[in-house]
């Protein structure tokens, strides 16, 4: 097996991985940095983010406001020291991107423009029309080309972390074009593998978001934190799940039920605001969990319109006018027309909640370090945690910049503290073991399961039982089903037994990652007997701070179901309170 030797290996070349790579290259030009990604960097799913990134910049705003919005939005499950770090660093990171050429939208005087976003009390979302993530990703990718010390391994699929003497010292990865396994020996590893929305059938997430990064760390013994918190974005196209950004509502779009009523006013987000004059933090600018839950209730009442893809509500943007829609939401218009045949300039667009984001992920401390020495994590695959029980829109892009850089600095400090290369023979045998596993999977015969069949069952199980509202019975059923699916997965046979760009193999490995993550979601959700943020239980409808103002930690147990234990939330100054999204006061 070919061996690549490097100082820091970064798995994932999305926003978080690229930011980390650049930060390392700038911190010490002598470091060898290896950036591993299963897709070319510009294909990473950060490119799909539309709305923007939050950072305090305007004079009427303050770090304290950003902090309060985030902590309240997260239903007090955020670590407040981490949130402090996020809001402090956010403006700096966004300005840094500006200095690297990001085409942020501008005010007439040439300063950057900001837009309102759900759950935010002030306008603080930096945006580049409605392709903010796209521009962030391409700015980072193109900037990364400047640094000769960043060596990229594009289209390499990471399969396992190499751990010895309690330290993470590299990984194994398959070069997809040749099908060959490589071992990458690194003194430190940063995991930036992105989210896992593909566990669900109806999602805004791209095909690559299969939770590999989470699964790799999890199997190496790092717990997954707060996995029960899965965000539904209220406004996806019912046909494809394609996202219509929250900025639609930020710019003034409203949500209607089939009677034409702006029903959010009936779910604690009243009073109704005038059309075209959105008020921050209420009605359509309420947080995603609340809006998605309101949809669920309306659906129960039969107030939704029926489409051939299921029930939907209407997102009405007609009053914004063609000019504003073209200027601020061109992609939204294009996608509504292409994929739904509806032009938002002339008609309301049917939308429904869609799985969007994993609040949970690899457990890290505020320095982006995991409990496994030498392993750091950032971006959607990590949980620091600043999102708590519900992420506010536009905090994630900021998070991956701030903590991508933080992970890099921590890794550099770790190297400086004298991380030695470990025992060659042990690592070699670890790598051989990883290779043997993949070989066995390719060569296995006599399997009866199909990949697509197992995947469908997993998706169905999660959608049925771990959706917007959950119950003990449903979750117990999901846990049992997922355990069964994991068992059956161990017996799949591949159709494709060749080497070059074998996507059958990749999908099988990805399914393995998703099943592990899915089980962590279901088990953590079953254990959390309360309702908080995006985790709503029909059998435990109240928030229970006495027992559950805690992070869940799911520990991998091999073939058995994960073990869940809890960790206190870091509270510095904001005591749990009522999340108030009825506008009008103050």
């Amino acid at each position, binding site marked *: 097996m070919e061996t690549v030797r490097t100082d820091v290996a970064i798995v994932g070349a999305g926003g978080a991985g690229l930011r980390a790579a650049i930060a390392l290259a700038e911190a010490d030009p002598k470091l060898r940095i290896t950036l591993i990604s299963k*897709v*070319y960097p*510009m*294909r*990473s*799913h950060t*490119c*799909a983010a539309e709305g923007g990134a939050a950072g305090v910049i305007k004079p009427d705003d303050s770090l304290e406001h950003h902090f309060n919005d985030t902590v309240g939005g997260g239903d007090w499950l955020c670590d407040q020291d981490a949130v402090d770090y996020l809001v402090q660093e956010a403006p*700096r990171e966004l*300005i*840094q991107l*500006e*200095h*690297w*050429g990001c*085409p*942020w*939208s*501008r*005010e*007439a*005087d*040439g*300063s*950057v423009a900001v837009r309102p976003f759900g759950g935010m009390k002030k306008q603080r979302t930096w945006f580049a029309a409605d*392709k903010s993530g*796209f*521009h962030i990703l*391409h700015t980072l990718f*193109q900037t990364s*080309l*400047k640094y000769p010390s960043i060596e990229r391994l594009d289209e390499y699929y990471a399969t396992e972390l190499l751990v010895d003497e309690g330290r993470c010292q590299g990984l194994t990865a398959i070069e997809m*074009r040749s099908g060959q396994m490589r071992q990458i020996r690194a003194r430190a590893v940063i995991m930036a593998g992105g989210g896992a929305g593909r566990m669900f059938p109806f999602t805004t997430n*791209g*095909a*690559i978001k299969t939770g590999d990064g989470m699964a790799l760390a999890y199997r190496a013994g790092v717990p997954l934190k707060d996995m029960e918190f899965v965000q539904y974005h209220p406004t996806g196209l019912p*046909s*494809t799940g*394609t*996202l219509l950004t929250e900025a639609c509502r930020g710019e003034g779009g409203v949500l209607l039920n089939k009677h034409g009523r702006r029903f959010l006013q009936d779910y604690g987000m009243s009073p109704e605001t005038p059309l075209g004059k959105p008020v921050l933090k209420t009605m359509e600018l309420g947080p995603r969990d609340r809006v998605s839950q309101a949809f669920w209730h309306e659906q129960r009442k039969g107030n939704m319109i029926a489409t*051939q893809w299921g029930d939907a509500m209407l997102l009405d943007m007609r009053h914004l006018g063609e000019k504003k829609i073209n200027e601020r939401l061109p*992609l939204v218009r294009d*996608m509504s027309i*292409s*994929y739904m*045949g509806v032009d938002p300039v002339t008609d309301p667009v049917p939308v429904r909640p869609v799985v969007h984001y994993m609040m949970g992920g690899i457990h890290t401390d505020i320095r982006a370090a995991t409990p496994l020495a030498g392993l750091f994590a950032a971006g959607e695959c990590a949980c620091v945690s600043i999102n708590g029980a519900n992420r506010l829109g536009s905090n994630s892009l900021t998070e991956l910049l701030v903590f991508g850089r933080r992970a890099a600095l921590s890794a550099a400090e770790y190297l400086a503290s004298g991380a030695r290369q470990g025992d060659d023979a042990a690592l070699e045998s670890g790598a051989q073991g990883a290779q043997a596993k993949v070989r066995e999977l390719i060569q296995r015969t006599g399997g009866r399961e*199909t*990949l*697509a069949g197992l995947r469908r069952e997993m998706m169905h199980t999660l959608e049925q039982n771990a959706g917007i509202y959950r119950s003990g019975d449903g979750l117990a059923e999901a846990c049992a089903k997922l355990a069964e699916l994991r068992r059956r997965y161990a017996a799949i046979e*591949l*159709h*494709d037994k*060749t*080497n*070059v*760009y*074998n*996507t*059958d193999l990749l*999908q099988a490995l990805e399914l393995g990652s998703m099943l592990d993550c899915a089980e962590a979601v279901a088990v953590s959700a079953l254990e959390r007997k309360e309702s908080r943020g995006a985790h709503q239980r029909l059998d435990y409808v109240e928030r229970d701070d006495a027992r559950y103002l805690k992070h869940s930690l799911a520990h991998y147990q091999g073939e058995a179901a994960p073990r869940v234990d809890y960790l206190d939330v870091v509270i510095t100054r904001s005591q749990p309170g009522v999340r108030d999204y009825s506008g009008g006061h103050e």
Partner: protein
Amino acid sequence: MSERVVELEVLRYNPETDREPHFRRYSVPCREEWVVLDALNHVKENIDPTLSYRWSCHMAVCGSCGMMINREPKLACKSFLRDYQGVIRVEPLAHFPIERDLVTVIDDFVAKLKRVKPYLIPKQPKALEDGEYRQTPAQLKRYKQFTLCINCMLCYAACPEYGLIPKFIGPAALSLAHRYNQDSRDGGREERQQEIAATEGVWECAFVGACSEVCPEHVDPAAALQQVKIKSTVDWYLEHAMPWLNK
């Protein structure tokens, strides 16, 4: 629910078992609103799991699903079945080597992109503490269109000059260089000229214009390239016809 059986003819090539590419035909039950990518996904899930192709976002922004659909470079996630009749032919993007099935080798583009220095080389370096550069909406608009490139390679598959002269840097990479040249914050044009005003740069472009016709993001690379040609020509005449301008 309307369903229609679509005949897909897909170019298959597996380097380990095939000497050369060959077409395979699949009958796919499709829904009316599907795109070609959905039909391919159906084939992969239900008919032939060995089919390989790239995709991710399903929203025309990641740039991975470029292929020839009825001999025209297209994003599979933005090619609606309703726009096609009869057999739909799907092939890997023209002008690139085929790695396997619909997957092409794009090393060439990736290397060229790096050569043209597609990053901001500031005119006046500024410390982070001093805040953002000022850039008016008009200045932003001057280059905005050229930032929209998703690196999907459709333009390379459409441009016959790239097919004929593989050394040609090509539409997308040149447009990205031009994007930075047009940015009010940038001062790196001189450096980029070394690559883009070289023979293999804009000068291999014959203004066929196909690149702009197929570009799914309306980047208009043809425009970028002609603008670079004009500027480079002016540069050249200033430099050679009026040498006293040089230091």
